[in-house]
C-alpha cells in the first residue's frame, strides 16, 4: 500500500517537476543542432517562475470561460498523466481510465482552451482555435487506429495491461504492425504537441500560429498554468509512446527498487525520443497549413496498414 502511494506520488512529482525540463532539453538541443547556443535547459522553469510572479490582465471582452479554460487544461493533463504507466507497468489511475479516457480527457482540455481562444473576440484567438480543432479532428482517427492495433494485440484498452503485454513479449516492437503503429502515433505526437512540421512553437507570426494564437491573450498565472499544462501534455504523450511501444525497464513489481530502475530507464527512453523529435524538427520545414492534412492522412494510412498487418502473425 505504501509503495503504491509512493509510486503515485513519484509519478505526480515527475509530471509536475520534470515535464518542463524535457521542454527545455528539446529547445536547447534544437538550438545546438542549428549551431546556436540556445537557452539553458532550465530556462523553462525560470519562465514559469517569472509568470507566476506577474499580475494578470483579463481582456474586458472575455467571460468566465476565459478564466476557466487554463484550469481545465492543466488538471486534465495531470489526470491523464496519472493514468499512464511510467516507471512500472502499474499506473495509479489505470483502472479508472484506459487509452480511450486518455484521448478524450486530452480533448476535454483542448475543447476549453479553444473556447478560451474564441472568448476574447480577437481574430488571432479564433484563428488558433479553428486550426487547433481542425488538426486535432484529423489527427484523432489516425491516433485511435494505431492505438487500437496495440490494444488488440494486448486484448485490452487498459494501459497497464497494454504495457504488461508489451513487457512479456520483449521483441514485439519489431512486428510490422507495431512499427507501423509507432510511426502513425509519432506523427500524431508531432501534431498534438504543436511541433514542426505541423506548428512552430517558437513563432508568433500571424500566418503560422496555431497553439500560440489561441493563448495570445493569456498572461501571468493563467499563462503559466497553460504553458505548464502544455509541457505536461507533451510529456504524457511521449510517455504513452515510449511505454506502449518500448516497455524496456518497466517492471511488473511494485517495489521501490523496481520503481527507481524504471525511472532511470524511463528518463533514458524519453530523452532518446526527445532527440528524435529534435532531429525531425531541425531537418524539416514547417508545412503549409493545408498540407498538414496530407501528413495526417499518411499517419492514418500507416495506422490502417498496422491493423491489416496484424493478420501476418
Amino acid at each position, binding site marked *: 500500500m505504501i509503495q503504491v502511494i509512493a509510486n503515485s506520488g513519484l509519478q505526480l512529482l515527475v509530471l509536475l517537476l520534470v515535464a518542463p525540463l524535457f521542454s527545455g532539453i528539446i529547445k536547447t538541443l534544437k538550438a545546438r543542432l542549428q549551431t546556436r547556443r540556445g537557452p539553458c535547459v532550465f530556462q523553462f522553469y525560470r519562465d514559469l517562475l517569472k509568470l507566476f510572479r506577474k499580475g494578470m490582465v483579463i481582456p474586458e471582452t472575455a467571460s468566465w470561460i476565459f478564466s476557466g479554460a487554463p484550469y481545465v487544461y492543466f488538471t486534465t493533463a495531470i489526470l491523464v498523466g496519472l493514468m499512464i504507466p511510467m516507471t512500472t507497468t502499474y499506473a495509479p489511475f489505470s483502472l479508472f481510465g484506459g487509452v480511450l479516457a486518455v484521448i478524450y480527457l486530452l480533448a476535454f482540455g483542448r475543447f476549453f482552451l479553444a473556447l478560451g481562444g474564441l472568448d476574447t473576440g480577437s481574430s488571432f484567438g479564433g484563428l488558433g482555435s479553428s486550426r487547433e480543432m481542425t488538426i486535432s479532428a484529423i489527427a484523432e482517427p489516425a491516433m485511435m487506429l494505431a492505438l487500437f492495433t496495440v490494444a488488440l494485440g494486448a486484448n485490452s484498452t487498459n494501459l497497464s495491461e497494454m504495457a504488461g503485454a508489451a513487457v512479456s513479449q520483449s521483441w514485439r516492437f519489431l512486428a510490422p504492425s507495431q512499427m507501423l503503429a509507432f510511426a502513425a502515433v509519432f506523427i500524431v505526437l508531432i501534431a498534438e504537441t504543436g511541433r514542426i512540421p505541423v506548428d512552430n512553437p517558437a513563432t508568433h507570426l500571424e500566418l503560422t500560429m496555431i497553439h500560440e494564437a489561441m493563448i495570445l491573450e493569456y498572461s501571468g498565472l493563467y499563462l503559466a498554468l497553460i504553458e505548464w499544462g502544455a509541457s505536461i501534455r507533451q510529456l504524457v504523450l511521449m510517455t504513452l509512446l515510449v511505454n506502449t511501444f518500448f516497455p524496456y525497464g518497466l517492471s511488473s513489481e511494485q517495489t521501490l527498487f523496481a520503481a527507481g530502475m524504471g525511472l532511470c530507464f524511463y528518463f533514458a527512453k524519453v530523452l532518446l525520443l526527445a532527440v528524435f523529435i529534435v532531429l525531425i524538427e531541425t531537418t524539416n520545414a514547417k508545412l503549409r497549413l493545408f498540407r498538414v492534412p496530407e501528413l495526417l492522412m499518411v499517419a492514418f494510412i500507416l495506422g490502417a496498414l498496422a*491493423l491489416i498487418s496484424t493478420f501476418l502473425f
Partner: protein
Amino acid sequence: MTMLPLGAVFALSLVAYSGGAVASLLSWREAGLARRICCGTALAGAILTGIGGLLALVQETPAAWSVSSGIPLFSYSFTYDALAGFFNLVLAILAIAVSIYSFSYLKEFEGKRNIGVFGFLFHLMLLSLTVVFTAANAFLFLIGWEVLALVAAGLVAFYHEDRASRRAGFLYAVMSHIDGGCLLLGFALLIKVSGSAEFATFHNIAAQMSSGELTAAFLLFFLGFGMKAGIIPFHIWLPAAHPVAPSNVSGLLSGIVIKCGIYGMIRIFLDSFGVVPSWVGLLVLIVGVVSAVLGVLYALMEHDLKRLLAYSSIENVGIIFMGIGAALIFRANGHPLLAGLALIAATFHTLNHAMFKCLLFLGAGSVLHSTGTRNMENMGGLIRPMPVTAFCFLIGAVAISGLPPLNGFVSEWFTYQSLLAGYGATGRLTRILFPLAGSMLALTGALAAACFVKAFAITFLALPRELKQHEVHESPRSMLVGMGFLATACVVLGVGATWVLPLFDGMMNQLLGQRVVGHFITGNGLVLAASTPAGGTVSTAVIGVGLMVLLLPAIFLVKAGAKQFGRKRGPAWDCGLPGLTSQNEYTSTAFSKALRMVFSVLYQPRREIQSVFDISPYFPKEIRFESGIEPTFEKRLYNPLKQLILSWSKRMRAIQAGSIHAYLVYIFITLILLLLFGVRP
C-alpha cells in the same frame, strides 16, 4: 399482481394525455388557461409514464393487456415490457423537462397563436409516442405511428404563415408516409408467415422465413425505421423539419420522435427476428458509420443554430446504429455477452442523446426566444445577458462532444469497446471493418467537439455582433428549470453511470435471454468494465472527482497569486492593435473554413465575389460576397428522383381524360382483373 400498479399507471397516463388534448382544445379561447392545462396535464401524464417505465424496467415479468376489437387481425393489445419501459422512461424525462419549459415558453404565443390547438397536438404526440412504444399488435402500432407522423407534421408546420415551415411540414408528411408504407409492407410479410398480427407471434420469426422473405422484410423495415431515424441518405427531411418547429417541439422531435426508428429496429430485429444473418448487422453498421461522419460534417458547416443541432442528430443516430449493427453481428456469431455490450452502447446512447439534444434544442429555443434569430452570425456575447442558458448549453455541448466525465463519453466508450471486441469475435472481413469503424467514430467525436466549440463560442462568447446587448434578456424561470433538469440528467448519467446501468438489465434479459450488466461493472460498483476479449475499464465517477480534487490546488494557487500580484481587466491585447470590435471576431463561417478546405471534395464549396467600382478596381464602392456548399444529396439524389416522378405523373395524365365514360371503363377492367386474381387456381 405486479401487473396491477403498472396497468393503473399506464391507463392513467393515457387518460391524462387524451384528457389534456381535449381540455386544451376546449379552452382555446382562454389563452392563459389553455397554456396552464397544456403544460399541467402533460407534466402529470409524463410523470405517470415515467413511473410506469421505471416499474416495467425493474419488474421481471412484462405486463400485457389485450382487448379484441372484432376486426380480423386487429386488437387493442399492449405489452409493457422492459424495452417499452425503457423508451417510455426516456420519453417521460424529456416530456417532464419540456412541459416545465413550455410553461413560460408558450407565453409568447398568447394572443398570437392558438395555444389550444398546440396543446391538442402536443398531447396527441405524447399519447401516440407511448402507444407506439407499448403497442403489441402490428396494426395498433401502425395507427400510433401514423397519428404520430400526422401530429408531428402539424407541429412542424405550426408557424404556418412561414413558407419554409409549410414546406418542411409537407416534406415531413411525405417522408413519414413513405416510411409508414414500408412498415406496412414489412408487417404484411410477417403476418403472412405467422398468420397473426400480434407481436407475440412474431417471436423468433426469422427461423420460419425463407431467406428471400427475410431479406425483403429486413430491407422494408430497415427503410421504414431508418427513414424515421433520419439516417443518411434518407435524412433530408430532418434538417428541414426540426429547426422550423417551435423549440420545445424540436427538442422532443430530435430527442424522442426519431428514436421511434431505433425502438422499432430493436423491437423487430432483436426481439422479433431473433438471430439474423450477419450481413444485416454489417449493413446497419456501415450505414451508421456513414451517417455519423457525414452528419457531423454537415453540422459543422451550418450557421443556423437549430439546423446545426438537427444535423448533429443524424450523427448521433449513426452512432446508435453502429451499436445496433455490432449487436446484430455478435448475435449472428453467437456472442451474447458482446451483443449485450453493443446493445448497451446503443441504448445508453439513445438515452444520452435524448437528454443532451433536447437540452441543446431548449437552449437554442431560449436564445431564439430572447434574440428572435437562429442565425449564429448575428449572435455573440450572449453569456453575459443569459448566463444560465449559456451554462446549460455548455453542459450539453460538452456532453454531446463525448468528453468525460459526462454522459456522452460513457456511451461512446461502450461503442468503442464493442467495436474493438469485434476484432476477435467475427470473420475476417468484419474483423478489419470493426476497428476501422472505431477510427471513424474517433473522427466523428473530434469533429463533433469542433462543431460544438463553434456552436457555443460563436453564440455565447466574445462581443455581440448584430444584437443590441440591452435588448437581450435571460429567459423566464420555468424555461431555466426545464433546461437545468436536463443538464443535471447529463451530469448524473455520466458520473453515476455505474448506478444507472443496472436499470438496463431487465431489457438485456428480455432481448438476449441473459443478464449481462453484472459483467460491465467492477471496482466496488465504481468502474465500468468491458469484460470481453478487448476489455478495458473506465470510471467516470473517479474522473469527475479527480478533476475536482486537482482543480482545488490550482484554484488556490491562482487566487493566492492574484491577490499578491494583481488581477485586473484591460482591453484585449490583440497583438497591439487598439480598438477591438465585433468585426474582428471569428464568425461561424470563418471558424469552419479550415475544415471546409480539408473536406472540399465533399462540400464542393463555391464563392462569388463581385465588386462594383467607378474608376479603378482598387477603389470599390461595393463588394458582394456569396459563398455556400453544395447540397450533394439534394442535388444528386433527390432532385433527379423528383424530376423522374414528375415526368411519370405527366405521362399518367394521358389516361386522366376527365371523361366519366373512361373512368367507368377503368373501374370495369379493374373489377375483372380483381375477379381473375381472386379465382386464380
